[in-house]
């Protein structure tokens, strides 16, 4: 029951020598080598809100437990971006084609991950994003 995430960063010309970094992480429960065993699966939503909307609601029980979040902006217009925020703290902007992968500490119930299609307008079209959450927490669905 393994979940693995591999990143490869490559560039032939950003430095004098080629850059090629590759790393695979096996996603495990906090502080152990036991595989994560729960997921919400891969989801797709279309954003048309310039204000923050909750993508993943933090669960206080999640504090001290492991969770991994993947988000990708599937827009094709390079100017369209999604602002990623955790507890009102902006992390960054995912432009078209960009993705992110983070460990997520649900340090309190304010630590929800929010998204906003900040420069969306009725003429730009929706901003599709896909996301997945892999986590532990046996009572995830029963502790609202």
């Amino acid at each position, binding site marked *: *029951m*393994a*979940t*693995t*995430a*591999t*990143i*490869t*960063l*490559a*560039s*032939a*010309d*950003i*430095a004098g020598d080629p*850059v090629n*970094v590759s*790393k695979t*992480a096996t*996603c*495990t429960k*906090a*502080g*152990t080598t036991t*595989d994560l065993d*729960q*997921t919400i*699966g*891969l989801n797709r939503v279309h954003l048309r809100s310039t204000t923050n909307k909750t993508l993943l609601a933090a669960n206080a029980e999640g504090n001290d437990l*492991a969770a991994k979040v*993947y988000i*990708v902006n599937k827009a094709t217009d*390079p*100017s369209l*971006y999604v*602002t*990623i925020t*955790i*507890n*009102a*703290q*902006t*992390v*960054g*902007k*995912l*432009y078209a*084609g*960009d*993705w*992110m*992968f*983070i*460990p*997520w*500490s649900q*340090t*309190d119930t304010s630590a929800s991950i929010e998204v906003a299609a900040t420069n969306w307008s009725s003429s730009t079209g929706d901003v599709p994003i896909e996301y*997945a959450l*892999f986590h532990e927490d046996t009572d995830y669905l029963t502790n609202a």
Partner: protein
Amino acid sequence: MATTTANISLSSDISDSTISVANESTLYTAGTTTGLNTMTSVTKVLASTNNVDLITTGSVSTTHAYVYINNPSTDHTEYFHIHIGNNVGSGTYDDGTLPTEEIGRLYGGDWMFIPWDVDDDITIKPSVSTDMTVEYQVFS
């Protein structure tokens, strides 16, 4: 301009139907198709459990960057708290009084990759005071 790509391959057999995701992103300056041209690559050894700056806004001259952070340890019990927000010298960590938000805990073997809007520093707090190594790259 340089061409830099970031690929992710995700695979999970947690559910009955395997989840398999692969995406490649070419790293551009904000809102363009112009490649980024600056890279910083650092390895640090941290020997205290203080919350300290890892990547400061002053180290990057743009307002849009990408950050890769890796915990190369093989010890799964040791981790880094990765925060975003400006580091301060007082307050109790995680008590809500510090102007930082914990993104997550990077356990041994874990990595993370984020877009960074360079508004606030990225800070780090090791879980133990024995030497812990962190690696990071910033593309901007």
